[in-house]
């Protein structure tokens, strides 16, 4: 799998060379157990509410 730089060199202006990439801090928060535990319940609650509201 090529790096972004390799891709730009091999195929300039290729779409995949311009995709946004997560930075180190973003990667940290994605794996931070405290934040993710909070997100787990938040997302579960959100989805459950959406499912219940979506039909009657």
């Amino acid at each position, binding site marked *: *799998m*090529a790096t*972004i730089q390799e*891709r730009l060199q091999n195929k300039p202006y*290729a*779409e*995949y060379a*311009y*995709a*946004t*990439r*997560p930075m180190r801090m973003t990667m940290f*928060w*994605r*794996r931070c*157990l405290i*934040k*993710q*535990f909070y*997100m*787990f319940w*938040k*997302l*579960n609650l*959100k*989805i*459950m509410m*959406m*499912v*219940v*509201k*979506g*039909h*009657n």
Partner: protein
Amino acid sequence: MAKVVVLGAGISGHTAALYLKKLLAKEHAVIMISPNSNYQWVPSNIWVGVGLMDPNEVKFKLAPVYQRKGIVYKQAKGISIHPEGSSVHEKPFVKIAYVTEEMQGKEEDVTYDFLVNATGPALNFKATPGLGPDLYSNSVCAYDHAHHAWHNLEKSLAKMEKGEHQTFLIGTGHALATCQGAAFEYALNIAFEIDKRKLNHLADIIWISNEYELGDFGMGGAYIKRGGYITPTSIFTASILSEYGIRWIKRAGVYKVEEGKAFYELLDGSYHEQSFDFAMLIPGFAGAGLKAYNKSGEDISATVFAANGMMKVDADYTPKPYEEWKASDWPSIYQSPYYDQVYAAGIAFAPPHSMSKPMESPNGTKIFPTPPRTGMPSGVIGKVVAQNIAYRIKTGKKDHPHTGSMARQAAACIVSAGYGFTKGQAATMTVSPIVPDWERYPEYGRDIEATVGVVGLAGHWMKLFMHYMFLYKAKAKFGWSLIPE
């Protein structure tokens, strides 16, 4: 006593059967007709396809569950429906053919008061020559396909361990295929497994899709709140693919597969080929091949079913341009417009049109995703149909107090890669409603407050949680009906 027949024990049919039995008094009969003896939790097939789960972990035998709940189970395939009865039967009936060894070939006419057609899709591998697990590509659409895919993937991984370069082609195997989400998840899982083995330098993973833009997922794409911006899912999806080192080919209609080679047409009309060592390409879906006959035995399939073999329901099927599509075109009670006692749930109902804008190449090839109806919407539709039938049986009335249009329902799509408490990661996307409603939400087509796109461990835990929770629910164990669809 009323008799309700359910055709198909997938997510929608199984949900409908369980709710019918729960809501109706004991004297009423619920009959399940399904050729497959197992229930499978399809979303977890992805884990079977990368060897993280055994097929037995995503399926269970239906017969013991139905016996415990008092549902009559016939392991058979629906052949035809006769909604007006026949010269022999006064009542409407379904002709079925048993598939078990001891009853192989035996046919039976099963009469009904209400019919739920939840036959799901037929995986139309034949629409793309060379496609499918019996030929040159793999599939994760069923647990046995996924298991087979894992065996082939293992071979590619073994070659990489020996220093051989491998190309993986994952995506849609037909110009009008759907279920991009499942293929997308499989691509991420393969990337994760390769990265885990530190073999990245030997892999080229390619995502090939009939979507006009990445992140369309058959829903015409969506907008999410992310990093202080309202961001289209195309950017979100491109970011994830890039992060996993996957490059992509979009606007592609695969029309032929040969050993190690896929042939595709792009929306601009150009023809290309892509070589591969391992391919997992989702086939097009078709109806289950049910026929319909009137009382005098005339074939009325073209009236009851749409051209793709899915059953017509209370949708607006008037052909109209994309600009005139409305959320109200979509059905809300899933009742046949021709036969009062017939309903179609889950993938078996014919959508009025796609959600993605129809696109056609200069050669006349239609290349765009057809609408997804799997998972959450399938379960909700099964429940709504069961509630309405139970209401009609109990009250004798003909109205439908329960509705569940996909233009009202929300859906969550969890694309998970890896496996374990700290090892996995998932992209969680929620949209509300599934079908964009531009009259209600003129700016983005959907409720931007309810639409979410996040990446992290939490989504992976949710996927794991849902695996166990929904299998528990499907087994109809204590409190099953408290778990939402």
